[in-house]
């Protein structure tokens, strides 16, 4: 890569704490019990966070001659156990976690005014029970704070988020929408106007999207309306 190139990668999506339970045999019958082969453990997960983690590692292991930064816009409760797990993980993997847990006051949608963050302690960071039985995985998800993530909360001015870029460096920007079907707040059309805003600010920006499984099995959510802005 050229020395003068800076990659600014902005991942906008879900982050969950995954709680793993490895069953000895089959799933228990209704009202029954089952033994686990190892202690229950919690690990960071969610499509947005997983993608950011692997990408950060690749850039650090393979991207020798370029500079880069990875921002992850998601919504967590930073004060609960799961939120701390996720924010510590991001710090460890050089991912800038931008918690978009904002209140519904319109003024707070501009910039990164952290003082306007919602502080509802009752809402838990999203978490997911992963039951592994005979190699098959079943998921049970509590969306928690992910339910508070709205399309209109997304920050679009990535230049402001990017502390490493400077005027002498050419910047390549990419936005990646992860876990679309997990984030119902993206389904109302406001994400579309945010994508328009991003492309207006930087016509060379590329945008990708990973839909993720739709637990409602409707496979709608306004996804097809967004494809005109998506490169892949």
């Amino acid at each position, binding site marked *: *890569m*050229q020395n003068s*190139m800076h*990659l600014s*990668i902005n991942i906008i999506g879900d982050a969950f704490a*995954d709680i793993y339970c490895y069953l000895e045999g089959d799933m228990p019958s209704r009202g029954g019990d089952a033994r686990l082969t190892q202690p229950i453990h919690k*690990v*960071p*997960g969610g*499509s947005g*966070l*997983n*993608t*950011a*983690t*692997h*990408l*950060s*590692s*690749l*850039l650090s*292991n*393979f*991207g020798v001659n*370029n500079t880069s930064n990875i921002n992850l816009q998601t919504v967590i409760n930073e004060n609960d156990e799961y939120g701390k797990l996720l924010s510590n*993980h991001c710090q460890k*993997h050089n991912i800038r976690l931008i918690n978009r847990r904002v209140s519904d006051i319109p003024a707070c949608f501009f910039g990164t005014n952290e003082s306007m963050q919602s502080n509802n302690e009752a809402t838990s960071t999203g978490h997911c029970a*992963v039951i592994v039985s005979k190699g098959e*995985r079943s998921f049970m998800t509590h969306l928690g704070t992910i339910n508070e993530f709205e399309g209109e909360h997304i920050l679009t001015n990535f230049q402001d988020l990017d502390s490493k870029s400077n005027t002498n460096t050419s910047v*390549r920007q*990419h936005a*990646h929408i*992860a876990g679309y079907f997990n984030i119902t707040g993206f389904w109302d059309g406001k994400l579309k106007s945010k994508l328009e805003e991003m492309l207006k600010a930087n*016509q*060379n920006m*590329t945008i*990708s999207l*990973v*839909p*993720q*499984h*739709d637990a409602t*099995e409707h*496979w709608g959510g306004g*996804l*097809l309306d967004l*494809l*005109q802005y*998506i*490169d*892949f």
Partner: protein
Amino acid sequence: MSEVEAKGISKYNNSSDKYSQSNLLDHIASFFEAYKVNVIVTLGSKGAVHIYNRDIIHQQETTPILNPIDPTGAGDSFAAGFLYGYLSCKTKEDTDTDSNEMIKHGMKYGCAVGTSSIMVQGASIPSERDSIEKILDSIPQLKESKGNAKRQKVS
């Protein structure tokens, strides 16, 4: 997107007796034709395909893994590998690099990182560089398809 996600979005009716992967990909290509978007469908151990404008542009096979440890998050690691391959190709030489070349590069890295990740327990644990490099070295050559559509949207 995964095969299952592509089926859901494109409303593929898999109860048909005529099911085959080829029929499915044809259905997906037909569904997304009007949207002029590059669709990358991951096919598990069979790799991934790039569909655009009703054509299968490329098919990238991957190295088979006999005893996978944990497939959780393989799609996310594919996405990370794809983005790395795509974006690094774009910045490697010049800005005129053909977008199809960038997608090919992305698919190769996507398959290598996705495959490597299933040998590690935990979806958010990155693979070691050596593991990814071994798969990159052994990954089958990408197949060019009959389709000759050119990418339009990516600059």
